[in-house]
């Protein structure tokens, strides 16, 4: 186990292994996401109350779910950076922060588009929407802080501390709809109960969440590889790799 952990710390090893996984991640992700979204948008039954406008859930929920998942992954990597000083963990944080930012923006945007016809407003300062906006600012802060510090090692530590501080926001987002009165409805999916929607609605939703997870995995690999190449550009393996023209 520890040997695997140390191997994972080697950028060169990661570069090789991720190249093998990436086509599968991309293919699986595209297939699942397409299946989920097409099924959800075109074939799932409409809702008794909201009619067809609820269908944006098939985009809103996957992006919102991933936005928080990515942050939790980033926070785990930040812990590894602070305690074990593993280079690859820091590469991961830097590679996925912009992806998380875009996902959070999409979640907020699709939420606003959904809110207008159902609630009657684009935006309201309730606990769920506000904590999600804070998540977007946290992603932005992580990117900005990283760009602001030139030295790679101090940037890595400062960013890791910021990411870990921000992880407090995640349970707030999750439980905001239970702890406080909000306009946003409570969660449809709970770990302990069966979902409060029929299978012909939650199955396509689950497919698109899984698909987005795989696509995120692929995107994270692509961005990490780019970051590794630029950091290790002076090493021999990168030079050999580039000379072979296999980029």
């Amino acid at each position, binding site marked *: 186990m520890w040997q695997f952990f140390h191997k994972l710390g080697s950028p060169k090893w990661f570069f090789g292994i991720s190249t093998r996984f990436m086509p599968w991640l991309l293919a699986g992700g595209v297939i699942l996401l397409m299946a989920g979204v097409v099924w959800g948008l075109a074939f799932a039954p409409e809702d*008794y109350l909201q009619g067809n406008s609820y269908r944006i859930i098939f985009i809103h929920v996957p992006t919102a779910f991933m936005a928080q998942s990515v942050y939790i992954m980033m926070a785990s990597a930040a812990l590894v950076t602070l305690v074990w000083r593993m280079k690859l963990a820091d590469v991961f944080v830097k590679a996925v922060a912009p992806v998380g930012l875009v996902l959070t923006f999409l979640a907020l945007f699709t939420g606003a588009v959904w809110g207008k016809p159902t*609630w009657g*407003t684009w935006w309201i*300062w309730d*606990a769920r929407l506000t904590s999600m906006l804070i998540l977007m600012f946290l992603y932005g802060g992580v990117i900005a802080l990283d760009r602001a510090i030139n030295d790679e090692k101090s940037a890595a530590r400062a960013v890791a501390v910021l990411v870990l501080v921000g992880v407090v926001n995640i349970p707030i987002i999750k439980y905001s709809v239970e702890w406080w*009165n909000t306009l946003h409805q409570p969660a*449809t999916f709970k770990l302990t109960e069966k979902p409060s929607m029929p299978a012909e609605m939650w199955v396509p939703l689950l497919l698109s969440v899984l698909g987005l997870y795989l696509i995120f995995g692929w995107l994270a690999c692509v961005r990490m590889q780019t970051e590794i190449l630029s950091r290790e550009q002076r090493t021999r393996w990168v030079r050999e790799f580039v000379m072979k023209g296999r980029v």
Partner: protein
Amino acid sequence: MHPIRKKRLTIVLFLLAGLSIAVALTTYALRQNINLFYDPTQISAGEAPMDVRIRAGGMVEAGTVVRDPDSLKVVFHVTDYNASVPVEYVGILPDLFAEGQGIVAMGRLNNEGRFVADQVLAKHDENYMPPEVADALEKASKNEGSSMPASAQPASY
């Protein structure tokens, strides 16, 4: 684990625990400000301030919606199945507004205990179902003698 790493891990975990406690205490102290709306029980208990712009939320009580035939004025009661507050609103209601549906209204509480709203937003719950299922559920509940559809149970607002 290497002692230095163990030490670092302890420090990080302590910082996180301290931070969580600080945030938990802050949000607990500010809970009344974080709550989006007052519910009818709080309003009838006098917890909501008079003549200040606040939000009130709850379910539209069945059979209380009265529309003025000459204007856009609507009067209805919001309830949390415990207390009920009359709401007065002039304007266009959202599409989802219906008896038994959740709403959040923004406005002022006047001294007669009536809530004069200038904005009404619809709130929906976390349950989704095809129209046929909703119809079947409603029929079933009518046969049992209750007129409330399954979607409008108190727990879901």
